Structures are given as C-alpha cells and as structure tokens.
C-alpha cells in the first residue's frame, strides 16, 4: 500500500486546492510538519477593503468594505447529541475577531472573553454578508459636532473577472436620495448610479444570486443587474408591504414581504408602548426560472429563513437540532425615546401564523450565542 507521506508536493497541492473552506485547509496543514511546510496559507480576502468615494461627497472621510461570515458550528461531547450554534463573525483590519448577532449584525458584548478552539468543532460556512462602513465628518464648521461618525450600509457583493480577482458591489443610493442604486466595480474603481426611480421610492433590499444582482424598492419594483450593467425588470410586487427581504433558499431566490396590521402601524414598530412583533403576516414569493416574474410560495418546506438588517440567509431545519421548518426568524428594532435601543428577534411559524419572541422558542434561541454554549469557553 502506498505511503501518503511520500505524496509529492504538487499532488498534495491538488488536493488542498479542492478543499472548500479555509478551515479545512488549516486542518490539512496540521497533519504533520512536512505537510504544514508544503501547504501555503492563502491570505484572507476582502477582510477590510478601502473603496474610493464619489467625487461630490465632501463629508465622507473613508469608505471600507467589510465581510461578516455566518457559520454553523457543531461540538460533540461524548455520549450526548451534537450541539450547534449559528455564529456571525467579523474580523477587522487589525485581525481582531468580533462576535456579531446573526440578524442585526450588532456586536455581541456583555460576556466574559470567549475562546473557541476550532479543532474541537465541525465548522460549516453558511454565507457571507458584506457591508460598507462609511466614516463621515458632518458639521465641519461646527467644532462641537466635528466627530467622525460611522454609518453602515447594506451591500450586495459579487466576484467578477476571469479569476474572480475583482469584485462588483451594489448598494442603495445614499447621496441625493432617490430610489436608485450605486454600482461599483473594483477594476474600474468608480461608482456608477443606476436606476431612474423617482424620489418617492427607495431601494430596500439588495442581493446577489446566480451571477446577477437583484434589488427591490419600497414600491415593489425589482430589477436584476449583471456585472456589465445589463438590467432586466421583474414583475412588480406592489407597495403595500412594509418591508421586503431578498434571500436565497434551496437554489431559488425568494422575496419575503412583511405586512403591517394597518397602514400607520409603522410608528408602533419597536416602540416602548407596543412591544412585540408588529408584523401582521409575511408573504413569500420565488423568482421563476426565466427570471422575470415573482411567483407566490405557500410553504418554505424544511427551510428556515433568517431575515437580518443587512442581509438574510436560509438554513434547513434538519441542520438545526429541534427546529421546525417553514419558519422565519426576523429582527425588529427597539426604540427608546426616539433612540435605537437594540433589536428584538422573533420567530414566525408560517403555517399557523403564530409568532413570538425568540425566548419562546428554546430550540431556536439556544442556536444563537450565548444559547447553551455554557462551559465551552476555555
């Protein structure tokens, strides 16, 4: 029988190249010292990428693209069923890791330092979320206000180019208002405005699906744009829904519309006097094969949708111990005297229409940190 230690370096590289995640590569490097020296560690991509700003933005000091990654991690203790957690991780430009809430992407604090040794976990990378950190200095002429402010924008990201070395971004247009989109290509290093929507609508969801960007606005208009700025219109959803989310599940693009119980209920969202989920019901549609029509979907099947502030993702219920499929996990802002005071997470069962705070669904709540991580920290 052949001896694996005699495997020539270039063949080892062929195997290493076919590993899908960085963690698998780290494991292969940890087998023995000669393999460690044979396999190089590729640098992490797009951890923190500066982006040029548009010419007329006098107040913007810097614009940076950051990546947040969602993982499903599993730890196994002898004699007990495996435990799983959803973690969203952000590594900043200094290499420091931050734990984020999977839905609001806000930093999770208030716990003792946590050290996870990934060698003790199975790690499944679920998806990546990209955001733009915009550092702006408003009130330059008013010294008491001149403090840099960091704003976060949702962005859809796509690798482009022959070897996927370049990328394209699409983000709801900020400067000058309007419902348009801003498009950026890393090769051209310039922002281009797309969409001639009137100022009464604004783009509320963007995503990347099968080589194209998709964006939907408050009026329900949906367009797809490819990297060459070729756009296609998808049939209108209408503007009754309070919020729309774009998410991929099972190889299909879904749009989730959240409806309020009555027209002016928007003011109640997360307010102190009205705690609880203000959304009356959700409607899900999927993009047809031709990519030009939204078709209503009655059930998500085994899928669970996690609808976040900046992006959304889906997981099969069978991957989440104890959880039911055909559910939506959604976050809602909480307001205290007109200031944002955090987010609350709710679980919605699409079949029955029942919903409740995350605490009422222990199988879901133990998935999100700290959940029942308990004594895993070293």
């Amino acid at each position, binding site marked *: *029988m*052949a*001896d*694996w*230690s005699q*495997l*020539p370096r270039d*063949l080892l590289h*062929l*195997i290493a*190249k*076919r*590993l*899908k*995640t960085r*963690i*698998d590569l*780290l*494991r*292969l*490097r*940890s*087998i*023995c*010292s*000669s*393999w*460690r020296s044979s396999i190089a*560690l590729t640098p992490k991509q797009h951890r923190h990428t500066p982006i040029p700003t548009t010419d007329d933005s006098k107040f913007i000091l810097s614009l940076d693209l950051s990546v947040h990654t969602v993982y499903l991690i599993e730890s196994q203790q002898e004699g007990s069923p495996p435990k799983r957690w959803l973690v969203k*991780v952000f590594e900043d430009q200094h290499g*420091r*890791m*931050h*734990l984020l809430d999977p839905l609001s992407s806000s*930093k*999770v*604090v*208030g*716990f*003792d*330092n*946590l*050290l*996870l*040794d*990934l*060698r003790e976990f*199975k*790690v*499944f990378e679920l998806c990546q979320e990209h955001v733009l950190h915009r550092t702006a200095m408003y009130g330059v002429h008013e010294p008491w206000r001149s403090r840099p402010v960091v704003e976060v924008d949702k962005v859809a990201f796509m690798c482009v180019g022959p070897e996927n070395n370049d990328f394209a971004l699409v983000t709801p247009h900020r400067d000058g208002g309007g419902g348009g989109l801003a498009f950026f290509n890393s090769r051209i290093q310039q922002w281009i405005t797309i969409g001639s929507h009137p100022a009464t609508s604004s783009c509320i969801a963007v995503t990347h699906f099968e080589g194209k960007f998709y964006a939907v606005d408050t009026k329900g208009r949906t367009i797809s744009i490819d990297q060459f700025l070729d756009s296609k219109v998808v049939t209108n959803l209408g503007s009754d829904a309070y919020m729309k989310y774009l998410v991929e599940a099972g190889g299909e693009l879904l749009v989730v519309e959240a409806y309020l119980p009555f027209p002016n209920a928007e003011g109640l969202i997360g307010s102190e006097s009205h705690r609880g989920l203000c959304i009356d019901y959700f409607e899900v549609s999927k993009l047809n094969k031709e990519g030009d029509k939204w078709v209503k979907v009655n059930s998500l099947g085994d899928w669970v949708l996690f609808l976040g502030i900046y992006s959304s993702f889906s997981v099969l219920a069978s991957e989440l111990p104890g959880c039911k499929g055909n559910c939506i996990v959604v976050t809602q802002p909480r307001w205290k005297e007109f200031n944002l005071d955090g987010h609350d997470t709710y679980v919605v069962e699409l079949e029955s229409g029942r919903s409740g705070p995350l605490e009422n669904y222990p199988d879901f709540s133990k998935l999100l940190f700290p959940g029942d991580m308990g004594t895993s920290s070293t």
Partner: protein
Amino acid sequence: MKFCAVKQYFDDENNNNITSGASTTMIPLPNVESHPLAILITYCKKHLKIKANNADNKKETEKEMEQYEQELLKKVMPQELTELILAANYLNFKEALDFFCRAVASAIQNKSIEFVRKFFGLESDFELGEEEKLREEFAWSFEGVDED
C-alpha cells in the same frame, strides 16, 4: 487527453518505426500497480463511452459521469486513493487525477484532524512550540467587552 504518458510512448514508437501494430506493443509502466491501472482503464473507457453516447449534450455527459463516479467511489477503499492518484499522475491522466483529488478532498472535509491523520495513516510530528502556533491558527478569540 487520456493516458498522455502512454500516448507519448506510442508517438515515440511510431517515430522510431520499431513496431507496426499497437495491439501487440507492451508498454512498461514500472510505477503503476495492476489494480489501480485496471480501475483507471475502466474509468477511461467509461468516460469515452458516456461522451460518445451524449455527443452533443455536455450537461448530460457531466451528469452521467457524476453518477458513475459516485458508484465508483463506493467500491474504492480510501487507502487505495493514494495509489490511484499517483498512478493517474504518472500516466498523465488529467481527468482521473482531478476526480480522485476531489474524492480525497470530499472525504476529509469538515472532519477532525485526528480523522484526517488516520485517513492518511500519518502521525503528528510537531514539536511543542509548533503545536502552540497551530492553536493560534484555530483560535477564535472574542472579547466580551465593548472597547468604546
């Protein structure tokens, strides 16, 4: 191109005008055992057959090939994969090499380091200082306190 090393041999033979018929030539393959060679020949024949059956439909070829590959993997022992990779590499059989490398990657992905060591029959020979460096690579360290 399949079995490039063998084809090269034939080309050289023809150039030298030594033999007249390909069917009677014996090609020495000192680095390949008979068992992996048999598998590679079967793989090659199957690939050509599937390609011929689905001449115009590339997607169908890929689908059928995938199904065959899944079946083949069930019959191959993980330990045999080294021999197959080395044989495919020696024979310059690119598609088979690609397939078996993918098979190894699938077998070890998201498995523990101990499993991967057992799979390859290798043992850790790291010194204490190196083990520490490894731990750093696998550590996710989160500070629970807000710096602001």
